[in-house]
């Protein structure tokens, strides 16, 4: 359970008081303007098209899904889900069909009512390959969407699974009366994509790519008017500049503060910190295939005893402390602690340099070259590590790991590559080690793509290290197809034990992000995986209002 932060409990109490006390005067002092400072722009404004965090943020403020997982992030069954555009739902007998009744008061920003055709349009946009939607691989279980009548749709699934409702929550309806006329695959370059008409609690006012995006509150929204009148995403390519704007109050929110800036925040009374769980984990992955000929097994790393020896020669705790002080924890496995299915009782190879040296000697890597690198049959123990240049933390981690491996006689070469080229190099498998990282969702379904065996149909697309374990795949399969949560968890635990013993990677760290928000806003309960979804419930303290908070003239 994530540790509720004491101040945020006080905050919720103040929130309730404010709501009861003086609803009257809140209206004319305005709900305030929230400026989100970010180092990356929103790449697209439509849910099916977005890939970056900024894109998710903006598209999920502009569009509402049918249903949404609750604050507990319980993705199993449907108990933990709140209704959005779908007021209510019902399951078919064989629980392969879910029928949703749409909320009659839900309207598009241009006044049209939200109807069944819109849900089908939303689903079709995800399925269209040319749109390159990242949620495509997560909705493969949905076979089709049928319009029953004006306000009812039914969603047909290929197979029963515990997370069917979570899959449904990934579908964002699109205004069919605007989208159906766009030819297949041309959605991303359409006028609609640049000036979307949404169903969410905010609408688009203006957009200046790579500079800023401005949203305004939708007055008559079916879920009520949101607190803040305006929300803006302001982009600063240089992270230090983006963060600096917090200290000068030129911006209000920055969602993942680097450790040194967390210390700095303490010196600024007008900034409040929110600590939450992270949804990204970083690891040093091994390549099971020979980079020079991917059909052959890796001559060195294919042997689990060597992988274990390498794991033992890395002092994870001191690396995490050096990089993040207390703002990250050693990795728990191929998942994050915030995921309900995660298992924090796994035992990973502990740091033990002497054991590592002994193991390496045992494996025949005895002779030492001039620079201390171990040799076997004339071959030096050299490992090429692929590191993404844009991620400062991973670059520094690579330098620390490199030095620790040098201690046990392993020569690790750091190959820094920029963002785009990193993806290509990762998939090409032209490396021995990879400082990789995955963003996850409350559901652990992503693990099929990242660690699932490639032999398994549709699995292992991102498993560029070629880790293949039939036992692991079988356990996962069983977990996903079981209906009740308890049996599902049992299977997942078996899968995690198997993968832990195989040591396909060294689970380096899982960042516990700290976000900074201007203290003039009182915050609702902070959703770790998507904090922006509750921005509507932010309340401005009228006494600390800033010039930009004045109620905007009717635009």
């Amino acid at each position, binding site marked *: 359970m994530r540790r509720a932060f004491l101040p945020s409990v006080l905050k919720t109490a103040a929130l309730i008081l404010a709501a009861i006390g003086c609803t009257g005067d809140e209206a004319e002092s305005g709900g305030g*303007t929230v*400026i989100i400072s970010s180092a*990356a*722009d929103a*790449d697209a*404004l439509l849910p099916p098209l977005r*890939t*970056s*965090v900024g894109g998710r943020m903006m598209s999920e403020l502009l569009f509402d899904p049918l249903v949404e997982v609750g604050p507990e992030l319980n993705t199993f069954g449907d108990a933990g889900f709140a209704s959005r555009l779908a007021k209510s739902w019902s399951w078919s007998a064989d629980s392969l069909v879910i029928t949703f009744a749409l909320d009659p008061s839900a309207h598009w920003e241009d006044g049209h009512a939200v109807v069944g055709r819109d849900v089908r349009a939303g689903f079709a946009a995800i399925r269209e*390959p*040319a*749109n*390159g*939607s*990242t949620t*495509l*691989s*997560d909705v493969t279980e949905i076979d089709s969407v049928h319009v029953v009548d004006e306000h009812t749709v039914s969603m047909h699934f290929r197979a029963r699974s515990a997370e069917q409702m979570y899959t449904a929550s990934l579908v964002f309806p699109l205004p069919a009366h605007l989208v159906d006329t766009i030819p297949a*695959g041309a959605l*991303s*370059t359409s006028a609609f994509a*640049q000036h979307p008409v949404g169903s969410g609690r905010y609408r688009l006012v203006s957009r*200046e*790519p*790579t*500079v800023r995006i401005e949203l305004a509150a939708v007055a008559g929204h079916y879920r009520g008017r949101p607190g803040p009148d*305006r929300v*803006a995403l*302001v*982009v*600063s*390519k*240089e992270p*230090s*500049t983006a963060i*600096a*704007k917090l200290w*000068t109050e*030129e*911006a209000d929110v920055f969602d993942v503060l680097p450790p040194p800036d967390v210390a700095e925040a303490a010196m600024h009374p007008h900034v409040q910190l929110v600590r939450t769980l992270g949804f990204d984990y970083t690891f040093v992955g091994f390549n099971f295939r020979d980079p020079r000929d991917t059909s052959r097994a890796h001559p060195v790393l294919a042997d689990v005893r060597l992988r274990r020896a390498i794991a033992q020669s890395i002092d994870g705790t001191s690396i995490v402390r050096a990089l993040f002080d207390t703002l990250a924890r050693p990795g728990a496995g191929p998942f994050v602690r915030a995921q309900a299915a995660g298992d924090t009782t796994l035992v990973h190879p502990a740091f033990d340099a002497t054991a590592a040296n002994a193991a390496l000697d045992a494996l025949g890597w005895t002779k030492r070259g001039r620079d201390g690198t171990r040799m076997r049959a004339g071959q030096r123990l050299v490992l090429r590590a692929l590191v*993404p240049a*844009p*991620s400062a933390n991973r670059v520094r981690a690579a330098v620390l790991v490199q030095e620790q491996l040098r201690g046990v006689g392993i020569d690790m070469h750091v190959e820094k590559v*920029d*963002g*785009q*080229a*990193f*993806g*290509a190099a990762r*998939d090409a498998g032209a490396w021995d080690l990879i400082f990789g*990282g*995955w*963003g996850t969702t409350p559901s652990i379904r*992503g693990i099929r*793509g*990242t660690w699932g065996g490639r032999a398994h149909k549709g699995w292992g*697309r*991102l498993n560029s290290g070629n880790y293949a374990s039939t036992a692991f795949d079988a356990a996962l399969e069983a977990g996903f197809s079981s209906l009740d949560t308890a049996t599902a968890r049992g299977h997942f635990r078996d899968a995690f034990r198997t993968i832990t013993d195989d040591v396909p990677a060294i689970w380096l760290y899982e960042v516990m992000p700290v976000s900074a928000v201007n203290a003039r806003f009182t915050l609702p309960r902070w959703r770790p995986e998507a904090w922006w979804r509750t921005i509507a419930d932010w309340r401005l303290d009228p006494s600390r209002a800033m010039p*930009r908070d004045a109620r905007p003239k009717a635009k």
Partner: protein
Amino acid sequence: MRAALLLRLGQAALVVLLVVATCFALIRLAPGDPFFSALDESTVTPEQRAEQRARFGYDRPVVEQFVRYATNVARGEFGWSHSRGEPVSLALAATIPKSLLLVGTAFLLAFSVGTAIGAWQGWNRESLLARATDGVGLVLVSIPDFVLAVLALMGPALAWRLFPVGGMRTEFGPTGPAGVPDLLHHLVLPALTLAVPIAAVAARLQRAAMLGVRDADFVRAARARGASETRIVTRHALRNALVPVLAYAGVQFSALIGGVVIIEQVFDWPGMGRLMLGAVQARDYPLVAGAVLVSSLATVVGTMVADIALLWADPRQRGRP
């Protein structure tokens, strides 16, 4: 004279074509393609990427792509920018004026102040102050400009809160004519950080040229006619001494357009430098090609303006092409 300009225009067109062609090929060689999603997000399937590449014609051979691109550009159609989600022409139209504003101010500031100081240093070479300022100039030129930028950002903006941290205007601040003071307030730091090293170079060039002209015979002849020192400096010496500085200005203006990458990056000024860096990092092929086209056009215009200014400053050039 007119024939000279015509010839220069022809050569310029050739240069622009050469630049766009080389960069068009270079960006294609870079691994990774525009449809790779951000670093760690679960990426799209290879089939989806293949589909998208086909739709934009990126799977055709490079030469064919270039020919198609060249014909499109001729029709004024610059293609679609994936990283910005808008047509390239729109992106360039929005970015060029901002770049010109920053580069233009910095350029004018640098050269007016630079030449004035340089001329003064050259004319009174003996004075200690002239030598001292020249020393300072040399130091300013030697500090890498991104260190200057970062220090300028951290000091005045952050520590003393004199200037905004970055960007072009205060969020939700006044717009339209009322927004101008706010815009200037944002312009000060980036323009200064850009102008200072160039001013130092311009001053040193002007100083050298002035030293050369100071002892020229026609200066002594003017003095013999009874002309006052100020008149000699302004009417005779400065104009002849401007020649090398103008030549440098021509080259420098062109290098500035794209060259302010780091300054625009640190100060978040949405100019051409920042756009190009982002485009290259996102492998946004059409945007890179479009941006390079614009920057090489600017280069050509810059050098041509400098040539014309040179013709004004040095009548001897007027005869030859």
